[in-house]
Each structure stands twice: as C-alpha cells, then as structure tokens.
C-alpha cells in the first residue's frame, strides 16, 4: 500500500520542451535529474524502493523531437519517446519493421502501451524487455546525446549486462536507427507468457532472414529472458546459413539452440523449460522462414 506522502512527494520536476533544453538541464549540476518518460517501470521501482526516490526528475514527455519516426536513407529513425502504441499503429513501422510493431502490441495492455516508450524500455534494460530482441535483428544503432554532442553505438555493445547500458552521465537516449525489412526478407516476433496481455515474457524472440532457392541466405535471431540481457545467437545463425530447411536442419538447429542458451529459473519459468522452448522457438522461426 502506498499512502499519499509516499516516496516521491519531495521530488522536483522539470519540463523541457526541446532536446536542447533537456540536455542543458542534464548538463547543469543544479538541475541534473533522473529522466522520466512513460513511467511504467520507474514509477513502480521508485514506489517499491527498488530504486532510490529521486530529488529531481526531468520529464521527457513534452520533448516532441523524441517522438519522431522518420526515414533516414533506407533505414528508419525511431525516437526514444515513441510509445509502444505508436510503434504498434505506425504504418511505417508495420511495413518496414513488422516484428517490432508486433512486439510492441504484446507489451502490457492498452494503457501501458500508451505510456511506455521505446527509449524507456532500452534504458530499463530488463532481460525480459519486449523491445530489444526485435531491434537486435535489425542492425540497430542507438543514438545518444549529451550537451557536448551526439554519439552512436551498436545495440549489442549498448546492452552491456543485466540492467546495465552504455549511457554515461549527462547523456540521454535520443532514439534508434534500424534497418528495415528488405525485399525477400521475412521476420517474426513470438512471445511466450502465461497470458496474452499484461504478462512478462518467459521467453520471447525475433528473427529476420531470407530463404531463396532452397537455401538460407541470411538468418538473424535474438531471444530475450534467457540471459542477463537480450542476445543474438551467432552460432545458430552460422549453422543454418547456406542450408536447406529440412527436417535435419530443424532438429539440429533446435538442439543447438537449447544447448547454447543458459537461462535461469525464476518466478516466471524454469531454466530447463526456457532452454527447451528456446529451441522450439528457433525451430518455429525456421519453419516460418521456409513457408
């Protein structure tokens, strides 16, 4: 029970209207604060005491630049403030990155989707976050900025470890740049949880690949909730590329996946179930690719 007068009562809030203003507040010691976007993770963590209640909060919800989705050459820029709802409903995302739209549609329910953001999901860096696996198969670069300038870092390097990301003091996540689905490529997002909505994943993942002339031309696959962070499976990818997707390939890819992932047991699932189902997921992805 949280009564009024709880942990956040003393916090001061600041409301930048532009990215430059937000970076200025972050730069200045007197106004530096914790960045708040949709609040769907932070508000819970603050109230539960998992994270210390902040003295100052910089509310990013009024920064329009962070809510943009736009083409950059043949890639897409997606702002950190884009909500799951926007990801789900954007025609550009549905066409160019359908797995991401599908993933966003499985986060929480309508309310959480309207509030939570892509940048918030990356910053929270939960291994069970539903956004990172799809981004991992799309050659994603994370754009971060401070008052001193911008830098770009590949998502695999950005996700350092369990709840640890490559974001330094004074920096915020501006957005991500992703490769869109190319001609002939297919992709799919799948999530296993106890129910369809309002459930945190037991295991989930995304693949993007191309199958042509009876051979796997390309195959990228990423899973979540099986390691301290969302991961690609390079050994499985290398194994299937160049092969025909037949019974033998499916069985071997499934077994290889199950043997490679090293999940843990927790309140949501067991290590052995997660290993087994990871193999089944990858097998399902290959079947989908072949269809």
């Amino acid at each position: 029970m949280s009564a009024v007068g709880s942990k956040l009562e003393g916090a001061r809030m600041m409301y930048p209207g532009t990215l430059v203003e937000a970076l200025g507040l972050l730069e200045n010691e007197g106004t530096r604060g914790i960045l708040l976007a949709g609040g769907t993770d932070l508000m819970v963590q603050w109230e539960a005491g998992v994270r210390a209640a902040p003295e100052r909060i910089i509310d990013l919800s009024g920064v329009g630049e962070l809510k943009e989705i736009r083409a950059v050459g043949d890639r897409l820029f997606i702002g950190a403030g884009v909500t799951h709802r926007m990801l789900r409903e954007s025609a550009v995302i549905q066409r160019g990155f359908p797995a991401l739209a599908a993933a966003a549609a499985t986060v929480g329910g309508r309310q959480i989707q309207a509030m939570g953001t892509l940048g918030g999901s990356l910053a929270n860096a939960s291994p069970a976050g539903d956004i990172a696996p799809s981004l991992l198969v799309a050659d994603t670069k994370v754009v971060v900025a401070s008052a001193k300038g911008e830098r770009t870092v590949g998502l695999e390097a950005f996700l350092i470890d369990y709840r640890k990301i490559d974001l330094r003091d004074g920096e915020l996540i501006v957005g991500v740049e992703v490769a869109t689905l190319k001609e002939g490529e297919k992709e799919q997002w799948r999530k296993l949880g106890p129910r369809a909505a309002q459930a945190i994943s037991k295991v989930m993942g995304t693949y993007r690949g191309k199958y042509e002339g009876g051979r796997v031309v390309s195959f990228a696959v990423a899973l979540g909730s099986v390691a301290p962070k969302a991961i690609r499976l390079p050994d499985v990818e290398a194994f299937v590329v160049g092969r025909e997707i037949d019974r033998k390939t499916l069985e071997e890819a499934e077994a290889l996946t199950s043997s490679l992932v090293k999940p843990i047991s927790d309140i949501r699932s067991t290590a052995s179930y997660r290993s087994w189902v990871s193999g089944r997921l990858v097998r399902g992805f290959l079947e989908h690719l072949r269809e």
Partner: protein
Amino acid sequence: MVNGEERTVEFPPARRLLDVLREDLRLTGTKEGCGEGECGACTVLVNGETVVSCLMAAGQVRDGAEIMTVEGLERSEGGRLLQRMYQEKGAAQCGFCIPGMIVSSYAYLRRGESLSDQTMRDAHAGNICRCTGYEKIMEAVAAAAERWPRSELAKTESES
C-alpha cells in the same frame, strides 16, 4: 479539466495522478488495485487515451489537459448507456475492477473501432477482473456498441 470542470489543485509534482484524484480531488471512484500497472483498476482517460493513474506522476499531466474518471461517465449519453448495459448484463461481480474497466469500454466505443471480439478484448486487455467475469463485460460493451450515439464518437486526427 477533470470530468468537464476546471479544477485547480496544488500537489507535489511527482505525486501519483491516482492520489491527486482520490485524495486531493476526492474522486474516490477510481480504485487502486495493484499499484504497479498490472491490473487497470485505476484506469482514467487523459486527453481521451486510457492510462493507469498509479504510474503517472500528476505533474506529467499538462495544464489544460482533459482528465476523465469514472465519475465523469454519467455526464455523457454514451457513459450512461454503458452504465445501463453493465447493469443489465450483470457485468459487475465484486465490482472493484469496474471503474477502470468501464472507462476502457468508454474509450473504446468513443474511438469507434470496428466492433469485433478481437478489438473489444484488446481494448480491455489491460484491465484484469479477478472474478473473471469477462464474458458479461464483453456482452455489455457489445450491447452498448449497437446503440452508441454518433455524437459520442471521438473526432479522428484528420478532422481535429
């Protein structure tokens, strides 16, 4: 604006919207279930979109924003229709989820999405009923949809 009335209230900016509604504005129709965004009992509308008020800092609601809580339902024809249909179909069991549930119903019908099992369930997916009385709730929403007043359809973005 809260339920169509301009309200001025002072609060620490990071106080949860739920607490400002219940404690500062004494609108106790909105319930706190889990307090962590899982159950949807505290659902209200901010500028027409459903949010869980337990996870929103009240300071994130901009001046001039429109908030609608369950108390605002009876001010509108659609809201009164929904209340009647919820009663008629016996949609409430223990009733604790209903203030949030019916706000999600109202938002859904105002959006005017094509009525289907899929869209109806998706619109209420963030509201959990622990009596598991979902069937009657869906029946009530479907019944309200049949005679939903045109004047209660939200303007689409191109119109506004």
